């Protein structure tokens, strides 16, 4: 589904990632961990074509990312739901329209998916915040809205970059449960986090692999919790 083969990524003369080889199989659950600045976000961006490797091969759905043009990358992103720590939204649109944005840009109007949208809002606990504007949301609400947006297209893969970075423990557990539910629905999940307690808390819920980035390489791939 997503495969890295001897991938390196350099920026500004320095190498951020080196010799990364990893494969995210369909339906798998992965944590990506490592200290701040170790390259977790960079690796996540390589997973959906936001960055291109400077060496090696990244294959997204069996296609080398270098052979994809910008429109192809857009199509890949419809199959990969992304939740960022900073949760970027269109601040002039209400939450419901932000969540249905992937449908809008793919020509599938939210009107036709009204039932799904309501169900999704309910799933993330934002039914009563559908008409609010993003700046009016709390940190946890923003993360849940971002998660709802990431999954509205029923993507094959969900990438979450520090999804619990700005929320309290209770909310991070709630988000984690949602991600585990998605994995149980067959979605491939990759969560980047430096919060080891979050990883430990997941142990009872799902079989997860932990990928640890240190010194530009994945050092602890395949270690089960």
């Amino acid at each position, binding site marked *: 589904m997503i495969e890295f083969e001897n991938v390196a990524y350099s920026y500004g003369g320095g190498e951020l990632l080196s010799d990364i080889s990893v494969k995210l199989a369909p339906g798998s659950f992965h944590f990506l961990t490592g200290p701040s600045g170790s390259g977790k976000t960079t690796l996540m961006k390589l997973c959906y074509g936001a960055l291109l490797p400077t060496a090696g091969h990244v294959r997204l759905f069996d296609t080398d990312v270098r052979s994809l043009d910008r*429109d192809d990358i857009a199509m890949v992103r419809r199959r990969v739901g992304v939740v960022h720590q900073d949760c970027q939204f269109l601040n002039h649109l209400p939450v419901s329209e932000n969540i249905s944005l992937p449908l809008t840009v793919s020509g599938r109007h939210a009107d036709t998916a009204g039932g799904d949208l309501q169900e999704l809002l309910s799933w993330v606990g934002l039914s009563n915040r559908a008409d609010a504007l993003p700046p009016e949301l709390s940190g946890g609400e923003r993360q849940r809205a971002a998660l709802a947006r990431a999954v509205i297209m029923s993507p094959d893969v969900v990438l979450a970059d520090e999804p619990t970075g700005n929320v309290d423990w209770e909310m991070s557990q709630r988000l984690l449960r949602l991600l585990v539910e998605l994995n149980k629905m067959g979605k491939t999940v990759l969560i980047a986090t430096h919060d080891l307690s979050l990883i430990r808390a997941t142990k009872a819920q799902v079989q997860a692999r932990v990928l640890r980035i240190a010194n530009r390489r994945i050092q602890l791939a395949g270690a089960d919790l």
Partner: protein
Amino acid sequence: MTKPNATLAALFKGDRQADRVVPPSGFTAQLTLFAAATMAFLAVFALALSLASGRLANMWGQELARTATIRVVAPVDQRAAQTAAALRILETTKGVQTARALTDAEQQELLAPWFGPELAIDALPVPRLIEIIEDGDGMDADGLRLRLAAEVPGAVLDNHSRWRAPLVKAASRLKLLGWISTLLITATMAAMVTLAANAALSANAQVIAVLRLVGATDGYIAQAFIRRFTLRALTGSAAGTVLGMLAILLLPSTSDAGGFLTGLGFQGWHWLVPPLIPFLAGAVAFAATGAAARRTLKELA
């Protein structure tokens, strides 16, 4: 990037939800509308100038080119004979449709502005004038001059080219200036729309990032901006064109005393030209925004 035809179809079809993804831009939107209206207003006047100059050039060129005058300058006792001889030559000259000598009354009328109506024309050595009207093919003025020189030594042919040419040239230049002004106005509008589109695209870099994150293609993003700026240019220039045409309509009408200035305007089918301005403005905005969007989206990729 979507194909231009698809973008064009989407432009007219519209998409309420897609239109909403780009934030409303308030003041800059008003500026774009105002600038488009102003440019269209000026374009109407440039067109009016150009088309009126064109009519003038045609009128001077065609009407004056088809007439010529022969002055028979001879002693009084020979004037009638030389006039008759000149008329005989003109009868056999190819390209001459009609030729006739002006009567005393007509010549007196011509001289009245300088000498008054009481002029005794017989008392002055006034040359006899022969008015020539050419047919469509025109006559060989040089050949006629040679024949007149040989057979009617007192006859001088004036085919008006000496003073007609500068007038026609001036009118043609005015016409050209009118078209150049229209082109410059169009180019300025393209530059203005490009600047506004660039500013909007740069100001919305985060919006573009979000749209890309959720799988929007460059074509989709570009289309949202193209549609917005094209409709603004179309609306603004339509308003400017209507105002410009009204202003032209309200200009004083042509009169004998008015001359060129009162003839500035549109006549006949020329009134159909200004309504094309909004469509031209829309096309310019469509192309300019498309180019700006392609460039900016490539830079932001």
